[in-house]
């Protein structure tokens, strides 16, 4: 199933690995920051008895 990459295997596989790593990092960071802020906002809104709908 794996295509024959020949002498360029390092270049091709490294490109895919680096790209996936960077994409995964920005997705994870965005998700984590979103969850952290949502949780903090909910705590403050609960304390003050407000909601953003």
């Amino acid at each position, binding site marked *: 199933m794996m295509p024959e990459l020949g002498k360029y295997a390092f270049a091709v596989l490294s490109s895919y690995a680096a790209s996936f790593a960077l*994409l995964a*990092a920005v997705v994870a960071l965005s998700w984590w920051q979103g969850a952290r802020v949502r949780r903090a906002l909910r705590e403050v809104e609960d304390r003050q008895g407000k909601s953003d709908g």
Partner: protein
Amino acid sequence: MSIWEYANPKKFMQTSAMVLPAIAGLAVVSLVAGLIWGFFFTPDDFRQGSTVKIIYLHVPSAMMAINAWVMMLVTSLIWLVRRHHVSVLAAKAAAPVGLTFTLIALITGALWGQPMWGTWWAWDPRLTSFLILTLFYFGYMALWAAVEDPDTAADLTSVLCLVGSVFALLSRYAVNFWNQGLHQGASLSLDKEENVADVFWVPLLVCIAGFVLAFVALVLIRTRTEIRLRRLMALLARERMA
């Protein structure tokens, strides 16, 4: 209905919550389909060999690195002219995503360049302007982090974004302006003669669609976070004053 309705944070949150699952789902499907198609089911190029498979990452990420800055330019201008907070928060949200695409383009370009050009890097007009654009991304994010007052930060980063736009445009058109350097012209063109062969072109279009949708989904997620953060800061400030 006017587009300016989305300058209302509540309206933006409601609409983005509705469209986000569909955009994120389409992004995952088109990215997975395009990359699997390109990696496993396309032949080697007669000159580039298997390194042609890097095109499915390099071209979409380079396109989106430049387009992300253009989107930031438009939203920054809206902030400077109309003072809509959601607009400048979208620009702030887009910067780390644009930077990620810029780094992907630089890394994949270097990995492709080494076997094809015999060098990881060349001070070619397009590469150099792209590197400067990368530095502008870092500078833009650093400026947001460095200035405490959010409206002052928005003003300063918007002006920085205007200046950086010169390098975004140069990254796109440097090959045409100077007609020199190692980097070739556009891989995609409305002129079919200039395009890459169809066997590479169709999966490349699917990958480009995937990168565009991934960018939109990530910017929506991050803008929603920025709006919530603004509200959190306002509530905490009110609490401190009470």
